[in-house]
């Protein structure tokens, strides 16, 4: 695996509140901000951290389904609303389901590596509360194979798909063990989110999170192996970060310690039309993570902070196994031992992750990068973790493990 052709950095990250059920200011009956608002809020918060917005050479926006949620395509040409300097610069929207944000990062990194850009403003955005959850499920099902699996799939398509994974995992490690680990994952996510003011679960005051997480799934009302606490909620939000070369950093007025360096990038697309090879494994995510680590030339033990795509608690468990933090089937033990908590050996999703912070789908990959950057540069505020190691790893997943983008970053 070739290393990065030249140093590439991430800096000036920002994200909005993840708005949706759980936030007190959210009500389905109150009008809510749209795409424009989120693009501007996150984009301007990033630009506010650099000395010269004119030094941005390009824009990339990750978005999954604005064409259905908001009846809006052509988001690349919306980036100019963030700042006039972006008008007439290259800009595009990239899509890879829930990994759209991850793909936006990969696209920005490649632009900088190509030498055509020294600074790229990367955004991710999704505004999903425009429809009821039942119809949201329709739109998100576009990440599956429409011709091949949608018709026979569950009403809540992806909860149905990941319920199958949870069922297979329960068969592998024992039902009680799997359920307990998923409940612990949920508790950790909410407890982490309670330290992150932007998180959808920031105001969560439930007394017994573990009891909620242990709720027996109701197959008639929802799915066979997942309860509602196992799922990330419907979210509106955006995230932004700047990707720059060394020269770019200095043109933006940023010092090296304001940034993290991207030392590894792994990107995979599996075959959307075929079933996963093993329901108890996130094969594609695992491959992307291994490629990113190989490029960075590090082992998993060299990283001290992690961001994984826990769209469901079960995806969280499978992700820590895919990263190599536990052997196959060992994720449950790792989580039950508290090792993935902010106080554990492998702090995972310290800002709440998808279940705690929220999952504005197209924004999520970028939000993960922002949280890694915050932790590694000491900007994580109340959820800052004391880090002994200098590397962080993130894996952004699209659909049922069909697209994956992994990054290794170093402070």
């Amino acid at each position, binding site marked *: 695996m070739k290393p990065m052709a030249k140093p590439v950095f991430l800096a000036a990250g920002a994200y909005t509140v993840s708005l949706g059920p759980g936030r007190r200011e959210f009500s389905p009956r109150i009008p809510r901000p749209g795409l424009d608002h989120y693009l501007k809020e996150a984009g301007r918060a990033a630009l506010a951290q650099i000395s010269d917005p004119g030094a941005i050479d390009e824009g990339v926006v990750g978005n999954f389904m604005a064409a259905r949620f908001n009846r809006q395509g052509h988001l690349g040409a919306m980036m100019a609303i963030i700042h006039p300097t972006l008008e007439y610069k290259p800009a595009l929207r990239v899509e890879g389901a829930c990994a759209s944000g991850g793909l936006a990062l990969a696209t920005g990194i490649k632009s900088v590596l190509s030498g055509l850009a020294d600074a790229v403003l990367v955004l991710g955005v999704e505004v999903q509360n425009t429809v009821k959850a039942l119809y949201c499920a329709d739109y998100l099902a576009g990440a599956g194979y429409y011709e091949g699996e*949608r018709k026979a799939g569950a009403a809540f398509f992806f909860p149905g798909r990941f319920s199958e994974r949870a069922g297979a995992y329960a068969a592998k490690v024992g039902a009680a063990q799997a359920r307990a680990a998923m409940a612990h994952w949920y508790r950790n996510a909410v407890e982490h989110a309670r330290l992150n003011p932007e998180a959808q679960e920031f105001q969560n005051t439930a007394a017994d999170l573990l009891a909620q997480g242990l709720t027996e799934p109701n197959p008639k009302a929802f799915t066979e192996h997942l309860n509602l606490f196992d799922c990330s909620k419907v979210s509106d939000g955006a995230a932004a970060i700047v990707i720059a070369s060394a020269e770019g950093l200095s043109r933006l007025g940023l010092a090296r310690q304001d940034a993290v360096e991207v030392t590894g990038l792994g990107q995979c697309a599996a075959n959307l039309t075929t079933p996963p090879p093993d329901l108890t494994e996130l094969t594609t995510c695992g491959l992307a993570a291994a490629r990113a680590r190989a490029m960075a030339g590090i082992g998993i033990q060299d990283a001290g902070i992690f961001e994984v795509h826990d769209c469901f608690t079960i995806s969280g468990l499978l992700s820590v196994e895919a990263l190599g933090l536990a052997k196959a089937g060992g994720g449950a033990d790792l989580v039950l031992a508290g090792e993935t908590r902010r106080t554990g050996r492998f702090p995972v999703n310290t800002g709440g992750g998808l279940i705690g912070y929220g999952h504005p789908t197209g924004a999520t990959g970028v939000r993960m990068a922002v949280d890694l950057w915050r932790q590694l540069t000491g900007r994580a505020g109340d959820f800052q973790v004391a880090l002994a190691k200098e590397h962080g790893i993130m894996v952004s997943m699209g659909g049922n493990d069909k697209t994956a983008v992994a990054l290794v970053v170093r402070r």
Partner: protein
Amino acid sequence: MDLDTRMEQVAVVGAAGKMGSGIALLLALELAYRALGHKQRTYVLSLIDRNDAALQGLVRYIRDQAAKDGEKQINRLRLLFQDRADLVDNQEMVQEFVFEVLLRIRTGTTLTLAKESLLVFEAAFEQEEVKFSIYNELASICRPEAYFLTNTSSIPLHVLSEACGIPGRMIGFHFYNPPAVQKLVELIQPRRCDPELVQVAAGVARALRKKTVPANDIAGFIGNGHFIRDGLYAIREVERLAGKHGFLPALHMVEQVSRDFLLRPMGIFQLIDYVGIDVFQSILRVMKKYLGEDLHSDLIDRTLELGVKGGQTSSGAPRPGFLDYAKGRPVAIFDPASHVYAPLEAPWARSAESWLGPRPDPGLSWKTLQRDPHCDGKLKAWFQALQALDTPGAAMARDHFRASREIGLNLVKQGVCNTAEDVNEVLKLGFFHLYGPITEYLD
């Protein structure tokens, strides 16, 4: 004729009203599901009311509610539509379902629309003249095998059916408001009633997932037999207390005691408003006429003369009656002397409350108890505490509780119902009370 054949031709008379619209919705949904299951049959739902504007409002209401029902039943829809390759998204299936619901509906303003109907549900305004006129006309329009399921809550069915020339073909099928939500149907079998009709009515109740409680054909039946007398008791209490405290504080106290001391979902005057003061009066008249009891209230008559009627808007929001409402909660009381509503945010209301005295400790509410698995034990403790409290409020609550129980016991004694349990069922299911009136919580 089997139930499914009868279900192919159904009509609702008074379909755009408060009760009629709910009944129409239930039937429209049921016929759609039947149609999706039996594709070779043709189902028709004739919805009849006095004007087109109301009927168009009704169709709009059914469309919105059908979409909500389809969303709730999405797993059922995904199965029903599994062979429809053109329907993939949830949204497509819900929209198709709404179309299936609306497809069977035809609306009209004349009773002739019910000409072919085999089951005629009637939910016209609860007034004798109105019902007599409708059934006289239906008797000549409808097929001889047509059955009539009336939603009357007070008029004796033997009188109505025999006077209109349809003896044996009418049964009382009394839904509770709102029909789409309330699980109870009071089933009233008049002295002449085709055995097949009894079977059909039971089948309809099952199809609509309603629980039936049998009542005998005595004016007011169980529900209004209790409610009307309970309301009159409350009015007498107000009149008794008004001498000392004034009308507004007196009404406020009785309202508070009936809701917060007896732990009912709403106070007695809010309930009268909900039913409609005009409907209350109309039922009073019917019961007085057929029972010979002195059932009458000057307060009801005077309030109606001032144009104050209660009831609900087409969207279900309360209209001002004895009380005025904001966001569904009482905020003022109508003062018949000045003809204006006196806001409850006022010192006189606080004094009235403090005169009542505290409620038992720990404080309970209907809202929290209704989902509490230990409700019965908590109620026992509550009434024990109420027994021991030496305050005017506790005394009023005890008196009201006993009056309500006496009314219930009399319904059994007078043969309106067969068992005490039937009275309790009606109050629990139809009025959402936590406990039936015939209980031993107090001596």
